[in-house]
């Protein structure tokens, strides 16, 4: 990176200073002419110019021409913030044939003209800053950007709709994708739904083709019932360990015929079926759901007799016959892969309705969560699509309560974005299937998407009762003979202005979305951040929603924040495009403002190792010295400041350079 390691005598400097007017943005408050004249008077300044718009082509040509004509070897540009145009001016230096890091920018816009009103004071400050920069730039050394090759393979974590879409995009473009999913099947939450809003498309019909495509795509390695165990490396060069949980089934041999499930010694299911939200029971050996991808069964070791007593008849093995796909001795195993970028699509979990004691979930048997109702409505669910109460009767009155676990300082402050829409959808479906009277209790009706308000219009036509009022309580004690034996929902009808008690047979709680329970642990695996609420943190909420602060790691879908299917798919496509761009660029250039250890001075105290927020410093056992991985280093300077022996230095921020700048600032006469 640096080719000159001696910090002492710099080469003879020939400095060019360029003062930008930025129209009236700077010139309105700073006396640019006086500033330019002052700069010309500073030692080693050969050329000092002013121009209306330095960032424009003619402005840059000024710099290039001067470099050629006068042999300038250091440039100072006094203009806007480096975040705006540092790359531009560095480009100009490169085009003129000198190293781009021999440039120092002075911010006389955001730091001077935008925060001062007095022309006198502003100009004086600008002069101080320019003087400091001129002294500093003398010590700048030529630096090279480091090129790192990008491995074109991509890891997608999470096989919900976002993960599936991202994986297909990338695979279709010819990249190899590893799709790792923690559940035994891909599909995510979308696989639970019956219909999706606002088109009322059958969720399975639109999802399963994509799932099958993933399962059979030659560019996708699909690993289900597996989790990422460790991630090492840096952008373009990640080494990932994936841990596979044992299904006790040899995936290559199982054809998904399910005869083993038929033959199991348990004639009836006895364990809560996770896919049906606990509304039905399954056997110890089971297929997660009929359209599961991969279409393989698995065995639950907590339930299977063979694991507890080793005395089972093992009718499953018998029936599997020559295929011999069942292996009770299977152990977990680890695969190691190398990828260039990672897309995290780990999705969400729903709010635990039991936390709101006043809604009676778990206390009254006919209080359901929205996911449970989705399974009831679904034709392949526990009741074959019949919406019935726990005792099998058809409900005549149903209450749907919005905002359970959302918009509430007692639980989750945010609005979960999708619940109003899915509550409307459930109202429609329940009404359609059972003819019951449906009441929706809402606070605000949030229908902002394409076709969403029109869907609400449709519901209004269908005779669903809308009561605007947050439900205070679901109880079973009657205050009126008509309420006997029912669940009573008590809420103020705020639009009417009085309290209403509505007796219903079934209560549906529209639970909100939350980050996954282990989001804070998962984020550490990938070296990214979480927001205060626990969603994965994007680089910029408006302009970079799918990137993170860790290069090469992207996020997409509900793990970044509550959202519906169209937005999840859009983000997945965006993340796939970012990963593709990285892979197609073949290599990435890293900024050289990194730190490095001066080995002779390093005492091996290891203080810098734990200080580094990017885990970029390691201890080399052979030499007993610290070593900075320049690819992971983000140039924050913490280690430089921390090192007790002063043996870490940072390019572009060397001690001498900083001292010169300070001296320059303080040398006002």
């Amino acid at each position, binding site marked *: 990176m640096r080719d000159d390691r001696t910090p002492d005598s710099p080469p003879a400097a020939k400095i060019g200073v360029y003062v930008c007017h930025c129209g009236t943005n700077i010139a309105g408050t700073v006396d640019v002419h006086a500033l330019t004249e002052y700069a010309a008077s500073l030692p080693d300044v050969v050329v000092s110019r002013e121009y209306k718009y330095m960032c424009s082509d003619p402005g840059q040509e000024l710099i290039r021409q001067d470099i050629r004509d006068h042999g300038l070897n250091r440039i100072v540009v006094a203009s806007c913030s480096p975040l705006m145009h540092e790359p531009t001016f560095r480009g100009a230096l490169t085009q003129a044939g000198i190293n781009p890091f021999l440039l120092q920018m002075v911010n006389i816009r955001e730091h001077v003209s935008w925060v001062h009103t007095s022309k006198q004071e502003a100009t004086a400050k600008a002069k101080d800053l320019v003087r400091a920069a001129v002294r500093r730039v003398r010590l700048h050394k030529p630096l090279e950007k480091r090129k790192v090759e990008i491995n074109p393979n991509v890891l997608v974590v999470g096989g919900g709709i976002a993960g599936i879409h991202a994986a297909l995009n990338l695979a279709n473009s010819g990249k190899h994708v590893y799709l790792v999913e923690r559940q035994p099947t891909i599909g995510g939450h979308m696989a639970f739904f019956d219909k999706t809003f606002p088109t009322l498309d059958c969720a399975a019909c639109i999802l399963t083709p994509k799932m099958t495509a993933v399962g059979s795509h030659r560019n996708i390695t699909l690993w289900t019932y597996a989790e990422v165990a460790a991630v090492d490396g840096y952008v373009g060069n990640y080494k990932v360990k994936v841990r596979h949980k044992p299904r006790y089934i040899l995936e290559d041999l199982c054809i998904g015929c399910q005869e083993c499930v038929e033959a199991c010694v348990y004639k009836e299911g006895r364990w809560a079926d996770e896919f049906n939200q606990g509304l039905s029971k399954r056997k110890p050996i089971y297929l997660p759901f009929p359209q599961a991808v991969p279409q393989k069964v698995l065995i639950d070791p907590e339930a299977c007799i063979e694991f507890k007593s080793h005395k089972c008849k093992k009718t499953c093995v018998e029936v599997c016959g020559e295929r011999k796909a069942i292996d009770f001795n299977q152990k977990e195993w680890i695969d190691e892969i190398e990828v260039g970028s990672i897309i995290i699509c780990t999705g969400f979990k729903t709010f635990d309705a039991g936390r709101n*004691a*006043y809604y009676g979930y778990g206390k009254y048997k006919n209080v359901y969560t929205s996911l449970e109702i989705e399974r009831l409505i679904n034709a392949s669910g526990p009741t074959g699509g019949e919406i019935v109460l726990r005792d099998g009767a058809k409900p005549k009155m149903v209450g749907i309560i919005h905002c359970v676990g959302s918009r509430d300082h007692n639980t989750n402050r945010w609005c979960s974005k999708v619940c109003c829409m899915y509550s409307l959808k459930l109202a429609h479906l329940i009404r359609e299937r059972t003819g019951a009277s449906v009441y929706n209790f809402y606070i605000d009706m949030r229908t902002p998407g394409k076709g969403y308000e029109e869907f609400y219009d449709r519901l209004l036509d269908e005779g669903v009762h809308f009561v605007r009022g947050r439900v205070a309580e679901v*109880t*079973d*004690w009657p205050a009126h003979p008509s309420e006997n034996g029912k669940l009573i929902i008590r809420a103020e009808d705020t639009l009417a202005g009085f309290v209403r008690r509505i007796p219903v047979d079934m209560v549906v709680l529209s639970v909100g979305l939350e980050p996954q329970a282990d989001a804070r642990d998962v984020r550490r695996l990938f070296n990214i951040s979480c927001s205060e609420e626990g969603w994965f943190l994007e680089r910029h909420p408006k302009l970079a929603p799918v990137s993170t602060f860790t290069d090469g790691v992207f996020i997409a879908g509900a793990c970044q924040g509550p959202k519906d299917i169209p937005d999840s798919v859009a983000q997945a496509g965006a993340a796939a495009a970012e990963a593709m761009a990285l892979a197609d660029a073949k290599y990435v250039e890293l900024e050289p403002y990194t730190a490095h250890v001066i080995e002779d001075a390093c005492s091996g105290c290891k203080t810098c190792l734990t200080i580094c927020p990017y885990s970029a410093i390691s201890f080399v056992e052979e030499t007993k010295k610290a070593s900075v991985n320049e690819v992971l280093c983000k140039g924050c300077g913490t280690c430089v400041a921390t090192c007790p022996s002063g043996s870490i230095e940072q390019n572009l921020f060397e001690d001498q350079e900083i001292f010169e700048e300070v001296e320059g600032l303080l040398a006002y006469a």
Partner: protein
Amino acid sequence: MKYSYYPGCSLKGTGRAYEESLLAVFRALGVEVEELKDWNCCGATTYMSYDELQSYALAARNLSMATQAGNDLMAPCAACYLVLNKTQYYVRDYPWIGQIVEHALETIHLPKDISAKVRHPLDILLSDVGLDAIKAKVSHPLNGLKIAPYYGCQIVRPYALFDSQRNPTSMDRLLEACGAEIVYYPVKTQCCGGSQKGTLPEIGLDLIRHLLAEAQRNGAEVMATVCPLCQFNLEAFQEQASNAHQFKIPVLYFTQLLAVALGIRLQDAGFQRSFIRVKPILTKKEIAYA
């Protein structure tokens, strides 16, 4: 274990049975209790509506004296319990209130430290004495007496310091340890109306009627309360509240029921002060009483 005891104005008047049974129970359990010397009225909800700042000062006087005495302060009356706790919270959360209260205490030469822990006897019985110790001393079990436990609003709201806010069970567990059967009582924390029965009689009566009806519907033979005003409201107006149903259900303090279980004589536990005779029910359930 020693506690300072803050009776509040009601426990010397309409709530006498509460004080009698409470002191008897603590004596039987070997817990020392000493009445706070020269305590003044806490102000309850009425003074808070009249003048908030003066009400904090009144409560603070008691708290300062209690802190001096050095023990936790037991406040059986739910309203006093709430006001004393509330004063501590508000003095801490609003510095300007703290200033005024401190100044007021200074003028009557009391120290400004008002940090004595204010506890409810239910809390003390469960956390400090312990259910096991109480069970060991139960000599006259309650034989499945059906009790509707009525907590009222003030010991669980707004501060749920020793029990769940929505579904408190401390009294349930205590009485079950004495051998009683707790009936399902979903309105156990619904307000009885407080002083509304006196000022807005019809509305007060409606609230009381509802609580009584639910207790009766769920088969309660006795109601247990923690607050003297709740006890009064529920007991004194049963005839007025009766319409189609005749309400005749004894309303006792939980300490009275505990006293029976511990073998304390009925007249030492204030049973002669009830309007509705309890002895027939005890006899019917074959509960031996002293």
